[in-house]
Structures are given as C-alpha cells and as structure tokens.
C-alpha cells in the first residue's frame, strides 16, 4: 500500500505494509538512521518522533497512521539552514549525551514538551520525560538542558564565564 506523508518538511511516498511501524519505514525506506530502535513496545522512548507535532513512539505506531500527516524526526529538529535548535544547543552546552543512543528520542520528547509548555515545572518535565530511558543516566543534565533551552536557567558556559 502506498503511504504519503511529509517527513521533515519534504513529501515522502512509500509502498509498504501499512502495519509497518513508522520506525522501520524511517530507518529502512527513508534511510534516516537518527531515530533508534530500543525496545519495540513503547517502553523506552528511543524511537520518539513527532506526528503532526505530537510525540509518538514510532516503534509501535503503524505507518498507516502517518498517512497524510507530518512526521518530524531528529534530522528535522534543526532549522532549514542547519542552525541547531535551542534545545540541541543546550544539549551541547550541558554536555548531555554519553553513549548518545537514546538522545534523539530524548530531544524529540523535550521539543514536544517545550512546544506545548514553554515554562515547564520540574513535575511537568518529569511527566513528559519519564517515558524516555537513558541507560547512561543523564537525567539531571537533560533536565538542566531543557530549562536552559526554555530560558529558565543559565547555561553552564555562561555560569563558567560569570
């Protein structure tokens, strides 16, 4: 079956079994490897992408649900000219990633959070991010980076300069 969707602003048409999870269509048909496979049952968040702006676990969301909709992956988080989003910049300033495998999903969950709530409380950050596992345990840095991107805290670079 042919599925038409907008992926990171570009039209994409794929001919696949409509039950195929978005994750594997993005990785195999569209050859974008930034979105990761972690558990296959929506338990770890490594595969998080946006479907019409909302975060979904792409490992458990069939591509038929994306038909006619907009999918945003980590490759589409930066501006069109390649300028990193504030979140990505904060991820660098706070030196968030270790192994980095879960970070595409973390960033996509965080981006969706800030889009609907530009000034999240700690509890709201916890609630939005609890679906994303980081086995390297960088939760403290992720939280700090979200607050830096939201302009709620100063970055470690600025702190060092001050």
């Amino acid at each position: 079956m042919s599925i038409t969707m907008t992926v990171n602003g570009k039209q994409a048409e794929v001919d696949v079994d409509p039950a195929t999870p978005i994750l594997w269509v993005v990785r195999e048909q569209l050859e974008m490897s930034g979105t990761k496979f972690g558990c296959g049952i929506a338990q770890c968040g490594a595969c998080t992408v946006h479907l019409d702006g909302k975060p979904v676990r792409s490992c458990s969301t069939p591509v038929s649900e994306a038909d006619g909709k907009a999918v945003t992956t980590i490759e589409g988080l930066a501006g069109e000219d390649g300028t990193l989003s504030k979140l990505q910049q904060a991820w660098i300033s706070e030196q968030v990633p270790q192994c980095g495998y879960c970070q595409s999903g973390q960033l996509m969950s965080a981006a969706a959070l800030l889009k609907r709530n530009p000034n999240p409380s700690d509890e709201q950050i916890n609630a939005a991010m609890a679906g994303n596992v980081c086995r390297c345990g960088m939760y403290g840095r992720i939280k700090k980076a979200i607050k830096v991107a939201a302009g709620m805290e100063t970055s470690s670079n600025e702190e060092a300069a001050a």
Partner: protein
Amino acid sequence: MSEAAETEKPKKKGKWTRRAFIGAGVLAGGALVVGVAVRPGNPTDEMKKRLAKGEGEELINAWVKIAADNKVTAIVPHVEMGQGSQSTLAQMLADEMDADWEKVEMLESPATARYASGAIGREFLAPTLEVPKILEPTVEGSFLKIADMMDLQITGGSFSIRGTGQRDMRTAGAAARQMLIAAAAEEWGVPAEEITTARSMLSHKASGKSATYGEFAAAAAAQSLPVRPKRKAVGEFKLMGKPMPRKDIPSKVDGTAIFGIDAKVEGMKYAAVKAPPVVGSTVEKIDANAAKTMPGVLQILNMGDFVAVIADGYWQAQQALGKVQATYSKSEGQSLDQDAIFKRYSDALDEAGSDGGDTEISEGDAVEAFAGAAKKVTAEYKVPFLAHATMEPMNCTVSVKDGKCEVWIGTQAPLRIRRAVAESLGLGEDDVTLNNAFLGGGFGRRSEVDHAIMAARLAKAAGYPVKLIWSREEDTAQDFYRPSSTSRFEAGLDEKGRVVSWNNIHTHLFDPQEAPTVPYYAIPNQLVRKVDVPMHLRFGPWRSVDHSQQAWFIESFVDEVAEAAGKDPLVLRRELLEGSPRHLAVLNKAAKMAGWGSEMPGGHGRGIALVPSFGSIVAEVAEVDMTGEKPKVSKVFCCADVGFAMNPDAVKAQMESAIVYGMTAALYGEITIKDGAVQQSNFHDYQMLRMNEMPEVEVALINGDAERLGGAGEPGLPPVAPAVTNAIFAATGKRVRELPLSKMNWA
C-alpha cells in the same frame, strides 16, 4: 638505569618499574607495535598508507597524525561508548604537544594488531597493578610475550585514561612535539632549547622565525624518536585538568552519529533471531510453514543453536520469526529455579563454615579473634543476577564474499570480534576487516562476541550481507549476566568497641581480585574467602564487575558493625581509615557536602559508603525519603579521587551515570531463573530508573595523586547501593539484606 637499558624488554615480571614502564612504552609503541619513524621496511609503512592519505600528510607516530594544513589527528585505540575517553585521550595528547585544540580531530584506530592498546598489557605486568579480567582472554596467559600483549584492543576496566592516556598518548604527544622542535632547530640553525611551542606553532624569538606544525610535519617524521620524551608537569598543563567539551557530542544531538545498528551496506537484508531459552539447549526442529509465506521473508534457518529469519525489512523478519515454531533439546540447566540457585549458595557456604573455601586474604587470625571477642556481629546478604540492558540492542552487520569478510559493529573489543568472526568462518584474521562505530552503551556486554559470530554465520549461509538485530527480548534473555551471589560475615568487637576481627565468605569471584577485600580498613585480623558454585548460565563483566556485589556486602556490614559498636557509621569509618589518608579525605568531603549529622525530618535518613575501585576512591552519601509508598532517593552526594581528573566535567558525568546505573540495580535490577530460563524480557519487567525518580546529584573531585591515575567509568557505581540501604536503615531501623529494594514490602 641508562636509557638504553630502559628500552630493553624486561625479563621478569617483578622487574617492572615506573621508569622502565614509560621507556618500554616508547619501545613497544614504536618499534614493536606500529613503528615511530617513517622508514622503508618499518611496520609503520603499512599504517602510513592507511592513515596518511591526504596530500602532504606524514605520520609522525602511532597515536598522532599531523597534516600539512596543520590539522592534528589523535589516533585513539579505544572505542566510544559514552565514557568520553576518545575526546579526553585527544585532550591529553594535544596538551603534551601544544596542539591547537580547535584543530584537533579524532580517529579511532583500525582494528589491527598493530594498533592494539599495548598499555593495557603492559599495565598488567606492573607488579602493583592488576589488569581487569575483561582483558584476559585475548592475552591468553602469555603475559610476557610482547606479541601477545599487542593482541588487545579493548575498552574496559576503566582503563583508557589511566592506561593508554597516561602512558601512550601523553608520551606520544611529548615525543611529537620534541621531534617537531628538533626539525625546526635543524632547519633554522638555532638551538632546540630556544624554540617555543603553542597552539600548533613553533616560534624562535631571537630570530623572529615561526612556522606551523604542518610545515615541519615531514621533516619531523625523519627525526629519531626521543627515547624518553619529557612530559609536562601538572603546573604546565594547558588542556589537561580542564573541562573541555567532548568532541563526539555534537553528532549525538542531530541524528548524524553512527552506531553499529546504523550500518548501511549495499544489498544487505535483515535478520531476526531466537536462541533456545535455556543456555546449553539446541534447536531440535522448526516448523516454518506459517512464516515462510509472509511478506518479505527470504530465508528461515535452523542454525542449531538458534533460529533465524532473514527478510527484506527487520520488522518483517521479526513478524515471521514470531510464527516459527521451534522445539529445543533438553539440557542440564533446565531444572534450575532461582530458589534452588540460592539454596546451592547456602549449602556451599554451610560446607565451608568459618574457615573453609578458597582464601583470598588472611591477616592475623580472624577465627580466634572472633572467638574471643567481647561482642559479635553476623549477617548474610544476597544479590540477584543482572542484565546489562544497553539502550542499543546487540547487533552486527556482516558481508562475506570471495573468501573475505567485512564486519560493521559497535564493540568494546574489535580484535576479539575479528578473531571470533575469522574462526567461525574458517578465514584468516587478515581476511576480516572490522568497522567499529559508536556503541549505544557497553557496560561490559559489548566485550562479548556471540552476536558477531551469529551474524557472520548468517551472512555466509545467506550469500548476501546481513544485518542482525536482536530484539529487546533476546537482548534481555541471552545476556552474559552479572552473577547473583550470597555473602556471609562475622565481625568481632573488643570491650572498647574496636573492630578486631573480620571474616567473610561469599560465592563467586570473577574480577577484580581485590573487590571482596578491605586492606584499607584498620582491622588487625582479616579473613576473606570464596566458594565457587558452577551453573549453566553465562556470566560476564557488568559495570564495576565484582565491586557491584562486594561493595554492597562490605559497606552494609560496616554499618551493621557500627550499630553494634554504638558508633555513628561515619565515625566508625573514620577510625577504620586511620592508616589511609586519601580514603579518609574522600570520606570526609562527601560527609561534609551532605551536612552529615544535621537534623533530618521524620522518615528521612542518610547513609554513607566508601569504596576504592579501579585505582580510584569514591564516597557517596544518599538521602532517602521513606514517607511514601516506596523508598525515594532524594539526594546523592559524591566525592571522587581519580588521582587527577584529566577532564573534570567528563569525570563528573561518569559519576552521575554510575550512580544511576547502580541505583537502578539497587531499586529494581533482578533477573530470575525459572526452569533454567530467564524470566524477564523487556523494560516493563526489567525496570529502569527514570527521570521522575532521579535524585539531585552533586559531585566533587579531589586530585589526590597526579602520578597514579584511577579509572572513572566504573568507580562511581559501587558505593551507591550501600549508601541507599544504609540510609533506609537510618530512616526506618530496617536493615536491607537482599536486593533489589522492589522485592521488599514497605507498607
């Protein structure tokens, strides 16, 4: 000792000294591993072809490349799995050679024996240091043969910085700088001592001459290698000791970082596999009728030790695999349950009694001192099996064609993988090319070779390149587990409450050998023993290895002893550390950070633990809130002495990471066995700590000895579990003697 004597291959294990060490490092890093000067016939020639490809590029030595455009490439023999050591190794090299950090790039060294991390092998030969067991299989017992030592290229044992960095990278950087200076001095006709270096530039003040490193790269390559290049003193460091941003991070925020699972190979297909649930069983027969007509399915294979489906897409392969019916042979392990395993441990410990088993350390007479003690304390502790649960499931891509094989993987042990793949295909090691990518977590799991052998056999059977990806379920059920263990203690106190006897026996010992021992505690009579209890499961190194069990046993019991002696846990530890000033400083700093002794609200408690491991010393204080339905760890204060923190922010990140890894195990980590098989399958029943449970973590560093570096990747883990359970005792009076905490009823 003369310089010439220093470069000779030492003949006896006991003769290694620090001076000889660095000398030998230059010899091994030069003449025997990859060569240093670029001369015809030198082994470096081959490496030069592979690494110095650009116009006007010259290879200076194994660990550094300087291009004519003044770009410096640090060639690092360790993999990147999140620990940041590639970046820190480059930082150490760049500092010693006064390179411009902005222009420094990193290249992971190719998986060939010439690039093996010799420092790891050499470190093993130093009489005062032990190499982690993770490295042993490749050394194959021939520790004194240089050729065998070179057959390592492993990242593990918290070893990259203190081993390769401190010995090889710094020495290589200093040597490169010295060779560049010598080349400039020759060309300019000025004394070498008058030439200064900074930001990849050479300058001679009196004559006003200056040049980039790149301009002298070729001339420097013709210079002879200094036998013992002068390395910087701490006061001269410009990059070392600074929190430099890691160079691998930008690619990890925009989706461009390539992990093993992201390999793209022309014509590759996807494989999903299932191994028999009980290790040791084989696949007797399969019924593939329902699966073979499913869309995309190319081949369904009974490989004997596992079933595989190869398909056009991975999801298709997984779906079809779910429809394959397999029957497995009976095997020895299939009758074993978790309770029976712990019963085996108790029986073995009962049989060993108070002085049986294999003695690991014996000082004085612990049994006699215990018999005559004024007060006696005993306790038994149990910990479960644990899986690694790396975020990136095991995977490997292999192409086999015309008697050659190419492998794409993220591994901690590239050379071990190469050898295992070659053996499984009946090829020579030189016929196997390995491409190593970033690792989506390692923690010891990616030092194993099982998944790569599977992928190689599938690619050979299929006749086209195959990307094998394990499901999370397979990853959880087919791990090399952290062993479960039971440990028993007896301690005796004299009339004044001083600890006079320490007697421990535990099941299982893998590595490091010192993990169950407490020589830093001033207890006159110490006896530590083990009993082995074999079983069918596969075990492997798990972040901090035996320290992950032993530290919890030891530091829990120290608290119980303090309670029996009527002393504050901090006060007792201070007394026991009277002869260990570095340990004491770390302990006191952590206690101070936490405000030890200050009032806490009801239902809250504070616990402390101190553990030396992998050459570093770490103390942690945990605060718990027991007023809710289950324990909540609200804060962890950590003080670490890693000797000298080369990149303090990266070291802090490792402590934060290890605290979460250790807390996850303490709160939830438990693999159980039923009918010989692992019962857990995915993150819903093998639970991870998540952001909503993340405590506030504060880390402080002490640079206790810049000449004796310790590791950073693992030492933050061992203290956290005992700090948490000791805090629970402080809050509730309930002593935790079995992990994980999720098993306990807190109502």
